[in-house]
């Protein structure tokens, strides 16, 4: 799954640490998501969408490999 957390973060001009506090997760989790190492739960995805004030589908996108 691709995500644009890094881009959205840049738009808001906040650091990984700031976003971690807002989303109530550790900074390592934000980092892992940005690197595509971790796919967040629905709850965390919705939190991120609310923080960035966008729809979930604007942050996350399916890839071909997600259908395997």
């Amino acid at each position: 799954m691709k995500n644009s957390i890094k881009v959205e973060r840049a738009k808001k001009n906040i650091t990984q640490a700031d976003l971690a506090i807002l989303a109530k997760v550790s900074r390592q989790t934000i980092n892992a998501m940005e690197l595509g190492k971790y796919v967040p739960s629905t709850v965390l995805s919705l939190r991120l969408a609310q923080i960035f004030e966008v729809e979930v589908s604007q942050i996350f996108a399916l890839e071909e490999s997600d259908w395997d």
Partner: protein
Amino acid sequence: MKLNYLFPNKYKKVGWLILIPSVITLILEFEPNSLDFNVPAIFIDELFGDKHFFGIVKNNILNEILGALILLSSLLVAFSKEESEDEYISKIRLESLVWAVYFNYAVLLISFLFIFDFAFLWVMLFNMFTILLFFIIRFNWQIYKLKKFAHYEK
């Protein structure tokens, strides 16, 4: 969602403070006579006698105490929350637990096949604690790597 069967973070430190001295005392292997007691037993298998259920045996209780302390404290160390226990940490926790179970039984399988007679008694003795031990090592190593190598980005 909130249910996760974990202890609060502060118990991790308590666990370590009990676990380390207990393991050291167990390794030193001393049995002070003052701790010899007649204790109730559920199953008795005397060296040159009968097997029977329920009775009283004379026993040095130090290794019972240490065994119980090691068991309980390693549970605390293994299953206390991290300072920032979130869903990603939970995933690492689960993966480490599965890994520890596989690794433990791999070690046990090899021991089954290549360790015999009385020497196997040591295997059984260690195997009581190794599943938690392997989990603790693996999980803490993963968390350490995560904290160290998650490079900071503005």
